[in-house]
């Protein structure tokens, strides 16, 4: 095994597809040197044909490099010991259509050599987690694309992988599912996993990734943290409650004095947040649906090895229970949008109350001005809590109505309506 400090490392990785005569026809990836650290979400971006999927396939031994080499989790590509620690979600559902959701997870669990008891427990919790517990005996062939993505993710997690390679994980998913999945990624990384995320949905990448790399023509064009790449260092954005015209005039004068220009607009709620609120309400009213249900929090077994942030009481609580590998998903549900919303209404159990309190405290902390300021100055550390805060705000009510003020620096890609 090659010693490496990275979860994924490529050295001059090159893939050239030859024509029938063996002549170089397409240079899909060229001298790619990728260094993905442990315990981060790396966003792998690029237009169609830029070499993203080819790179992933080389990392999974589905393609052989023409030149260079790839190392995964410190081992060589294709080594079963390495494969045992990797979860892979391809860009489309390549699952066996005739198998049911439960049989699918059972099949992959068997390949990983999981014992019957562990397999059963994980299947149940994973199906709960991805919101398909009601469809456990339905064949995959009858699933919608979004449901297929959910079961695809579940199969990628069945072995409790250290590294997740996700190719377009949210494509075809509804906004609720997308949000849940993004929360899950953040949570997984918080619990020690590493994720290579390949997506065309830039907003998703921006929301969850620690670092991103942009590939074009098989070459890495740009790489860095999301804030490094997107933050406008020479602009500022202010958010307040309703102000009088007089106050606005005063602010404008101050800004003019500083040589700046002020633009004032009423912020609009994001459609995604609005949608999630409506669906959450419908679910609270227990309206019937034939589609996927809301997923629960992260499956407990996924936290078995992770003690990345020991100060987090939640992790300690979960990891103790997970040594048995049979903990129902609800008992470890923590920070996803749905679990918080539903638990506030329904759950009276002590565990949930504790989790709710913990979650609320965390979200409350994240919206204080001092904490927010910290976010802007230490972007890679604070990216994930921002997402959790948004979910809570969307579901628990708009914190702006309380009159609190926050100041953030606008990102390049932010919707102008929110400025």
């Amino acid at each position, binding site marked *: 095994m090659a010693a490496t400090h990275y979860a994924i490392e490529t050295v001059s990785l090159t893939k050239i597809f030859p024509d029938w005569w063996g002549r170089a026809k397409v240079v899909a990836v060229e001298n790619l040197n990728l260094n993905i650290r442990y315990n981060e979400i790396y966003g792998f971006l690029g237009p169609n044909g830029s070499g993203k999927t080819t790179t992933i396939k080389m990392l999974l031994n589905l*393609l052989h490099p023409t030149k260079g080499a790839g190392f995964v989790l410190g081992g060589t590509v294709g080594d079963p010991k390495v494969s045992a620690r990797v979860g892979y979600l391809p860009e489309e559902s*390549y699952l066996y259509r005739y198998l049911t959701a439960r049989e699918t997870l059972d099949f992959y669990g*068997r390949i990983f*050599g999981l014992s019957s008891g562990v397999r059963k427990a994980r299947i149940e919790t994973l199906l709960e987690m991805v919101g398909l517990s009601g469809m456990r005996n339905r064949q995959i062939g009858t699933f919608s694309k979004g449901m297929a993505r959910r079961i695809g993710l579940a199969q990628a997690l069945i072995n409790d992988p250290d590294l997740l390679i996700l190719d377009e994980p949210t494509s075809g998913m509804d906004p609720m599912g997308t949000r849940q999945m993004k929360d899950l990624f953040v949570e997984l990384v918080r619990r020690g996993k590493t994720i290579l995320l390949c997506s065309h949905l830039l907003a998703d990448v921006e929301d969850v990734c620690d670092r991103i790399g942009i590939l074009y023509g098989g070459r890495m064009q740009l790489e860095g943290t999301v804030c490094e790449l997107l933050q406008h260092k020479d602009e500022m954005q202010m958010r307040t409650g309703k102000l009088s015209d007089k106050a606005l005039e005063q602010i404008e004068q101050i800004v003019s004095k500083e040589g700046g220009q002020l633009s004032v607009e009423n912020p609009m709620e994001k459609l995604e947040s609005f949608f999630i609120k409506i669906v959450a309400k419908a679910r609270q009213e227990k309206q019937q649906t034939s589609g996927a249900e809301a997923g629960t929090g992260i499956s407990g077994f996924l936290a078995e090895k992770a003690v990345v942030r020991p100060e987090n009481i939640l992790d300690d609580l979960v990891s103790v229970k997970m040594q048995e590998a049979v903990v129902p998903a609800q008992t470890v549900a923590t920070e996803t949008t749905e679990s918080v919303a539903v638990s506030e209404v329904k759950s009276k159990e002590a565990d949930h109350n504790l989790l709710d309190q913990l979650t609320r405290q965390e979200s409350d902390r994240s919206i204080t001005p001092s904490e927010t300021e910290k976010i802007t100055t230490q972007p890679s550390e604070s990216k994930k809590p921002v997402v959790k805060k948004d979910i809570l705000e969307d579901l628990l009510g708009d914190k702006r109505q309380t009159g609190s003020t926050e100041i953030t620096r606008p990102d390049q890609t932010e919707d102008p309506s929110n400025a």
Partner: protein
Amino acid sequence: MHSIWAVARNTLAQTLRMKIAAVVVLLLLILLPLMSMVMGGDDTLLGKLQTFTSYGLGLISFLLCILTIAISTFTLSNDIKRKHIFLVITKPIRHWQLILGKLVAIVLLNVILLGIFSGILYAFVLLIPRMVDATEGEKLRAKAEFFTSRVGIKPSFDTELLSKRAKSHYDELEKAGQIPEQMSYARIIGELFGQEMLKAKKVDPGEVKQWEFENVRVKDPGDPNALLFVRYQYKVTVTPPDEKIYGMWKVGDLRQLKGGVKVKTPIYDVDRAEAIRVTREFAIPVAAIADDGTLGIAFYNNPALNRTTIIPEEFEVLYQTGGFTENFVRAVLMILVRLIFLSVLGISLTTWLSFPVAILVCVSVFFVGLTNGFILDAIDSLGATAGIIYSLTVKPLLWLLPQFDGDYNPNGYIVDGRTIRWTFLATTAIVTLFVKGLLMLFAGMLIFSRREVAKTVS
């Protein structure tokens, strides 16, 4: 091991959902009972049993072979085509384990289906004598010639002596300048050898031909009802007007006919008139065999009754060595060897060929196997002129082809009540599976382990 079993289970689930599997199962479920009712043969009990078993076993073998070819060429190629393999091969499983898992599933399916349908066939075979209105004689004949397991022994000839004679005959012809110019040496020698062989077999009018067989060990020598069978076919140099030969046979320990020897075992006389060019058979109690396992048979060409030289062809003595059931099991195992070989072939081919090409190759190989003797002889005669190139290239490839006809066809054994020896079965299995099959399997695994699974489908 767990990953091989996981793949096997999944492949089994996949194949059971295939329509061709349902069609084959349905066809066999309908046709086997139907055949047991409608097939009559020559309207005797023996004929009915032989016809039903021959067609039944043939049908089971053929349909399962077709099913095996379809499944084995489909399962891996479909996984690659539909990219299911992306999610399997990226897990902790070796390429060879995937192939082995698929093979295990197909073999398992074959064992199950073959077990079920050969069991059904066996049950019908046992039921037919009860369902058919047969005479006691017919039942005895069926018992002696069908519900048995017999070994055939043939007289041996001193081929070295015959070759020497053929050679000296050739020298004589050469000296006399009578060698036809247009004929090759090998062909002339071949014909002269045939003539010598004919001379060794022929029985002129008034002549007695005697054969002696040693080490004839029957299953139950003390059984008064146990029989042995003498099988032959009369060929003649001049066809008699009634096309019949009046044969006079003596069967027993013929050493006793010499003076001064005390008679211990009976010697049986069989005199009968029979049509020429038709295989005939008569039965003699096994008491005719001497204690030391020697059996003598003499044929007298009575000049008062026949005016032609007689050549008893296909001469053979058959005697029981076991029961029908165990022989039937061996016949089924021979079919299983065939099915396993086809499974290996199909999977190995799809490691580098697409489904349509692989199934075409597989079906071709299957039919070549069914007519192997004829095709091999034809290619061999053509290739003989190519010399060493042929020997090094085509011949080894031809050797890899399976043999399903002639001695390798279990139907003939069961229909004639002939024993399939365990040694023969084991040799066939070793050559077909452990040599030819393993060679192909290793080649397939090697190719597959080096294959870029994602590239070939892109």
